[in-house]
């Protein structure tokens, strides 16, 4: 009997993914644990391992296929000691479909028991199946087509669905905007984007790099955030001479244990401690209420090939510097090879982005929804400072906190920074 190989879920919430690559071909013998394929979601690539031993009998989803549903049949494995069934002809899957729709004559189908072909199929990917009229009506009413269940063939949204949705109150085209602010339906209109040609850049004068999943996700999420989240920056300077000294000492003392703490590791720890002291800054806005997070899950922005990703140090307030340092190293290394699991980069409560190593003095990041704030860390550099009315030299670092005003008001942000500043300037206080 052949064994079905199904599309795996890389995370509990994953619904579909791209079958990026096959490592095996029909006829190959595999044993449990062999890598047989690579699955890609918008942020991660995962290897699929064989669970059973046998010979690959059929590969049913070609490499490069996008939007493969979780649990879809992707390949068949002939069990151990069996000769594989003859490979199915190319149109076999197509033929199988109509057969599946015909209930067996013997089993008299009860009117409710039989399959509901196509009708229940949800629209896949970015493309929403909808009739021209449904599109127009939804757009006029400011309704999000994606949120409307389609009753037409292949789940197509038709006029009747839009009308029903209009009465039933389906989500409007955008996520809930600023509390109390009015959300005019017109704002739901997608922005018209002119082509490069229309803007005077002739075709042929550039190379077009196709958008991969990560680029699309970055574009969509940050556009949504920058447009929809009412954000503002708060900037302070921090003197870090004491911190640098402490870091040098720690690293010297613990060299034998292989510990090498970075400035950023200390910032992560300090942020986590400050968030525990000012929990209002460790919060997310939701239409139902403000979510006060119980832990400081710190997302750390890591630049990787083709984009960036924010792996998370969970409950950083409970972890020591050595542990934070080790975790960040591991997460960053695996991020660069796209080997992170979705739960390792989804769901942080606060982000830290550091461009200090590039000599950037100060910058303001875009809120990483649904987090309430993100800290942008600039370069530490020697600057003239005034101390007790005298000019002095100190190593100074500028950090900027971008706040979601719906949860982190100016005063809360300032309170958080006031808690954060001494932890950096007097790192000994991190021990308390």
């Amino acid at each position, binding site marked *: 009997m052949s064994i079905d190989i199904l599309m795996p879920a890389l995370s509990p919430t994953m619904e579909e993914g791209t079958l990026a690559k096959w490592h095996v071909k029909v006829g190959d013998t595999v044993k449990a644990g062999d890598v047989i394929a690579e699955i890609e979601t918008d942020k991660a690539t995962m290897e699929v391992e064989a669970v059973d031993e046998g010979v690959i009998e059929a590969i049913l989803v070609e490499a490069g296929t996008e939007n493969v549903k979780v649990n879809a049949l992707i390949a068949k494995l002939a069990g151990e000691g069996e000769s594989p069934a003859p490979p199915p002809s190319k149109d076999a899957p197509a033929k199988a479909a109509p057969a599946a729709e015909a*209930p067996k*004559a013997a089993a*008299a*189908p*009860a009117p409710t028991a039989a399959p509901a072909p196509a009708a229940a199929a949800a629209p896949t990917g970015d493309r929403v199946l909808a009739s021209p009229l449904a599109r127009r009506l939804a757009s006029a009413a400011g309704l999000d087509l994606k949120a409307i269940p389609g009753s037409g063939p292949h789940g197509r949204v*038709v006029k009747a669905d839009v009308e029903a949705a209009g009465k039933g109150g389906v989500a409007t085209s955008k996520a809930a905007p600023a509390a109390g602010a009015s959300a005019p339906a017109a704002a739901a209109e997608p922005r018209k984007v002119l082509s490069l040609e229309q803007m005077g850049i002739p075709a042929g004068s550039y190379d077009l790099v196709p958008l991969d999943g990560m680029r699309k996700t970055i574009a969509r999420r940050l556009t949504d955030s920058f447009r929809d989240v009412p954000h503002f920056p708060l900037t302070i300077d921090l003197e870090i001479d004491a911190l640098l000294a402490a870091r040098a000492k720690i690293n010297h003392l613990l060299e034998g244990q292989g510990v090498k703490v970075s400035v950023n590791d200390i910032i992560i720890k300090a942020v986590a401690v400050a968030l525990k002291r000012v929990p209002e800054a460790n919060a997310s806005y939701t239409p139902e209420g403000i979510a006060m997070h119980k832990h400081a899950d710190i997302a750390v922005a890591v630049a990787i090939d083709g984009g960036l990703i924010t792996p998370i140090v969970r409950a950083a307030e409970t972890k020591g510097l050595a542990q934070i340092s080790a975790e960040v190293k591991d997460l960053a290394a695996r991020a660069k090879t796209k080997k992170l699991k979705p739960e390792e980069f989804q769901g942080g409560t606060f982000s830290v982005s550091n461009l200090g190593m590039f000599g950037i003095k100060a910058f303001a990041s875009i809120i990483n929804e649904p987090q309430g704030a993100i800290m942008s860390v600039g370069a530490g550099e020697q600057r003239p400072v005034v101390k007790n009315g005298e000019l002095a030299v100190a190593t100074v670092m500028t950090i900027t906190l971008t706040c979601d005003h719906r949860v982190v008001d100016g005063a809360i942000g300032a309170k958080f920074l006031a808690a954060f500043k001494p932890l950096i300037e007097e790192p000994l206080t991190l021990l308390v």
Partner: protein
Amino acid sequence: MSTEFDVVVIGAGPGGYVAAIRASQLGLKTAIIEREALGGICLNWGCIPTKALLKSGEIFEQLSHLGGYGLSVEKASFDFAKIIDRSRGVAKTMSNGIAFLMKKHKIEVVEGEAKLEKGSPSPKVVVALKAGGSRTIQAKSVILASGARARDIPAIGAVSDGDKIWTYRDALAPKAMPKSLVVIGSGAIGIEFASFYRALGAEVTVVEAVDRIMPVEDAEVSKAAQKAFEKRGITFRIGAKVTKVEKTKDGVSVAVEVGGKAETLTAAVCIVAVGIAPNTEGLDAIGLNMDRGHVVTGKHGETNVPGLYAIGDAAGPPWLAHKASHEGIHAAEHIAGYKTPAVNSPIPGCTYANPQVASVGLTEAAAKAAGIDVKAGRFPFKVNGKAVAAGETEGFVKTVFDGKTGALIGAHMIGHEVTEMIQGFVTAITLEATEEDLHGIVYAHPTMSEAMHEAALDAYGRVLHI
């Protein structure tokens, strides 16, 4: 009693036999009962044989206009018996085709007349077999597709006798070509026979009770149609009430009242084409809900009697073969447990006279009456290149849009072969096209279908060729 079949279909017309094929495709063991001929009225005494007659009529009519094309024939003539024979032959061919289809899909054909009795899980079907004796079939589901027949009006003497007072059935296979006819009713059936017999030279008068001919069509089409038929020599009495139909020694006399004035029309033959009566007698015995002779059905053809579905003419208007087929498929799929997606197709209507009339969706007047802010467009064939080249410039295309949403909600056409063109608009309405789509779609040139594009453009003041 054991259930031999999953589905038994009563009546092998275009509703019944299609339902049977679909049921069989879905793996249901299916039988079909027919008392007369496979294919029902449509194939044997309706849609198909009339098209054969009308083609003969059309060609003969064309022969008298050959000069315009630079052609001539010595003396055109026809053999009426051969025209009828051809039509019967076409019907026979099609009916045989259904027998083949039933065999192919392993559907058991039971020849005889069915009656329904109370039963479980569906009504018991008792068939008085053609070959003698009877057979009782208990199936899991029954689809009633018993169709309809021509309606008589006994109160005024309009009762067919097959000799001088005809139904469509008599008009399809008469013994001889009648010299003159009065046609009562200007619906599709009345108009098609009027057109055919007039093409062969008969004197034809059409009587219509409403104030315009083809009352289901858009008013502009009615008007153009009357003009086109009058040009061919058909006379009309509109807004005319028939008070008496009497047989005389030479034929019939039809007493009508037009605007309060009485008039008597005489002719060799009278065709009664005032609608149909569903074949649903005796069904109240099993407690079936009925409404004016039609079976009351739900969305999928289901009735109030468990296991019984009704489709086609028996289940109500419009009395059209394609509506019956559509309902038949739907009922079969419902029986098989399908949740059929909501393909919300409007039902087109076609009249195959010369010129042809075709329509789908709402007329302009009906749309306005429904409170819709209407945008209507028109385009005449007389400025369409293909129509001019073919010498078929009669008629026009009309579109009706909902001005608020831009949805196409109706289309109406009169002209050469417009019955083949209407499908474009049926598709458009079903797929919920808006004016943007219909303006943007490319229409092959030169075709008469370009008039469809122009009529859609015209509704928005963008017509190109006028």
